[in-house]
């Protein structure tokens, strides 16, 4: 990205000593400013570390007892989000990078990246106050939709392959990302219309009751599933953007070569593009995971904030970030709660920093490797 060489002033240019002094002064102040920035950045880590030290002198398992349900809640929320976001983001990345015509791709990509700009507090509001009560009333339909939407796409694909040539030209696969939108809308309404009847016939009434009686699962209005949907929505764009970049950077000559040897487009993708872009996709997933672990407002607003140890996707949780946001303003400085919360922040900081560094290093390596592979192409 940066040009390989930089200019170094070893030879005096110009003879005016005032200009030279001014130049040295400016260089010095830029350096000082830059080091102030670096110091501020280092200060975050040092402060968090320093303020968690008093915990070492505290006896007992107070810290562990407070933090372990929170850590579990954080992991559960992040896991739920990744379960939804990963397939969608990676699928979308594969499709945009390898199947879409370039003019369309250059329009769709910024639109999808726009999703990232939507503030967490807005997503949290929609999830906690609008989506959660709706899902509670239409639980069966929601569960059916999670399965039915992928199935209906496969149905669309099967129908398309059987359709007449003229129709296929009219609805080319490379534009399927757009014309599948109305199809999905219709399929959603179909599922919403049909499910209550099927629910009545199969389990004689309410799914929530059935879950409670047959499986002993409690249903909380704001639960891990809702958090997963909302945070998944928020994480999709960051995973998508990075994974798409990695796939698009795979030299076209590799794919063309594979196809020239008789591979289908999908085989070329699976055997050539994915292994080549693998590290980039890995780093995209890591960045997404880091974002899911640290996201505060969505979990705060959509999870019910109960510190529970439960694996059920229908129960709430409390994450580290949400706990800090709720408890920190009330904790007196110097109290044990204060130090525990700072330690929690340190955990978040270290985790995301390590994950991101790993992702960044992997990504840079990959970029070098791919540029070598690409050669002249």
């Amino acid at each position, binding site marked *: *990205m*940066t040009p390989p*060489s930089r*200019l170094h*002033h070893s030879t005096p240019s110009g003879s005016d000593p005032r200009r030279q002094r001014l*130049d040295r002064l400016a*260089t010095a102040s*830029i*350096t000082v*400013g*830059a080091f*102030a*920035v670096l110091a501020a950045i280092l*200060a*975050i880590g040092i402060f968090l570390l320093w303020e968690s030290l008093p915990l070492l002198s505290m006896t007992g398992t107070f810290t562990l007892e407070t933090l372990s349900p929170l850590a579990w809640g954080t992991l559960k929320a992040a896991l739920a989000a990744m379960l939804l976001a990963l*397939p969608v*983001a990676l*699928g*979308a990345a594969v499709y945009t990078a390898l*199947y879409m015509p370039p003019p369309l791709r250059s329009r769709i990509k*910024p639109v*999808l990246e726009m*999703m990232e*700009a*939507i*503030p*967490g*507090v*807005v*997503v949290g*509001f929609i999830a*906690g*106050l609008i989506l959660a009560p709706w899902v509670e*009333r239409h639980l069966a339909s929601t569960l059916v939709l999670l399965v039915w939407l*992928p199935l209906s*796409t496969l149905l669309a694909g*099967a129908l398309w392959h059987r359709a007449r040539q003229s129709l296929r030209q009219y609805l080319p696969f490379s534009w399927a*990302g*757009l014309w*599948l*939108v109305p199809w*999905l809308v219709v399929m959603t309404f179909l599922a919403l219309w049909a499910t209550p009847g099927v629910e009545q016939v199969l389990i004689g009434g309410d799914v929530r009751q059935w879950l409670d009686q047959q499986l002993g699962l409690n249903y909380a209005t704001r639960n891990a599933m809702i958090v997963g949907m909302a945070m998944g*929505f928020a994480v999709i764009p960051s995973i998508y953007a990075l994974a798409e970049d990695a796939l698009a950077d795979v030299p076209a000559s590799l794919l063309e070569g594979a196809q020239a040897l008789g591979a*289908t*487009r999908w085989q070329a993708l699976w055997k050539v593009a994915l292994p080549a872009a693998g590290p980039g996709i890995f780093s995209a997933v890591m960045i997404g995971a*880091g974002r899911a672990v*640290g*996201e*505060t*407002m969505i979990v705060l607003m959509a999870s019910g904030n109960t510190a529970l140890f439960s694996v059920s996707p229908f129960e709430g949780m409390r994450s580290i*970030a949400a706990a*800090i*946001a709720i408890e*920190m*303003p009330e904790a007196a400085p110097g109290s044990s709660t204060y130090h525990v919360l700072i330690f929690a*922040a340190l955990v978040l900081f270290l985790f*995301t*920093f390590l994950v*991101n*560094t790993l992702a960044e290093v992997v990504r840079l390596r990959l970029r070098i490797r791919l540029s070598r592979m690409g050669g002249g192409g």
Partner: protein
Amino acid sequence: MSRLWPWLCAASVALSLLMLAALLTLLLTRGLGHFWPATLESVTLDSGEVIAGEAVREIPLPHRDGEERLYFTANRDLDSHRWRWVEINHIDERSTPHALVRLERSPWGDFIGYLTAVESAGSHLEGEAAWQALKTALTRPPPERPNATLILKSAGGETLRQPLNEIHRAYRPNAMAWWEKIRFWSSGVWQFLSEGPRAANTGGGVWPAIFGTVLMVMVMSLIVMPFGVLAAIYLNEIAHQGRLTRLVRIGVRNLAGVPSIVYGVFGLGVFVYGLGSSLDEWFFSDSLPSPTFGTGGLLWASLTLALLTLPVVIVATEEGLARIPDAQREGAVALGATRLEMLTRVVLPMAAPAMLTAVILAIARAAGEVAPLMLVGVAKLAPQMPVDGEFPYLHVERKFMHLGYHLFDTAFHGEDIQAAIPLVYAIALLLVFIVLVLNLTAILLRHHLRHQRGQSC
């Protein structure tokens, strides 16, 4: 099967687009619909009871056939609740009488019912004359309004005396023509943008929150821009491009991925409890123990967000600097310029659009960020604006209101969340609109920049 896998990938794109479109449509329709004067219904039940209100939604009855409908009936001072579920097959008659009035009042929330009379200083007006008198009274600014009392009658027949000075707006939606509704709608939007909140944040406008957000973002930009640009210039133009610089660059990039709440904790611990308390001890010791700087405030919030957006600014500026061809720098130096002259005359002017992009991206990130602000100085309801006529005019130690936090607070801490949801939609729409417009500007600017650079190289 391998023929069908690509379809799932295509559906992922379609699904993402669908979710984005659904979210934006929901915000747009509900957010703008909030200001539209909804039709009021008068409903006679089979028990003979009459209620009046706005129909909100219908859901199927639990465990039985049929549906029930939710009415917003207002009048909390008469029957202590504002909502009413009515079974549809218990409704005898629905009508939309033109005389139904909706009043927006301060302490008790809305009133829905009929206006019987207006009494003021000996005069007693009834019927249409009373409505005209009320309308003319409300067109004047609040301090000049006459000292009058309204006699109101609810749909159920209860009478109520209501002082005029507690009323903000009065309208009869059923009697309005469509162009009157449009005028009413735009005046509603204007009031939302220009007035302060009322009724514990569940009604009124968001002006202080808009003002607080803008001011905080401006102070933040003033802090973050010089430092961010200096750091970027150092990394790209001065530092030796070795292993260390590369490490620093990775570190800076990764700070963008550190959760915002961590910055909030840092701001609270270092700025508020550390710096703020020391400042209080040195300069404001006479007002202790009540803290001046030792509590959250505009300055600390801006500093915290400046730290949060620092990586954004550095990365975007550096990207712009790296795009400038080395030939430009070499040319300047060959003509005898010192490094400072090369930077100020050649490099920085060429990187100006990149720096503009950087500040817009930083603002967009900061405007939507709520979690760290909850720790370092945002307020539910700030008693004073951070800017006023009193010296030194800008009070950076004061707490301020923020659009995102206002949304969170209205949606989750109100006493009647149901009634506040339409308002929350409007706030969310405003916030998303601001952030998206900022981001779009940055994208277009960057696009333009690349295009231009592509031609010049």
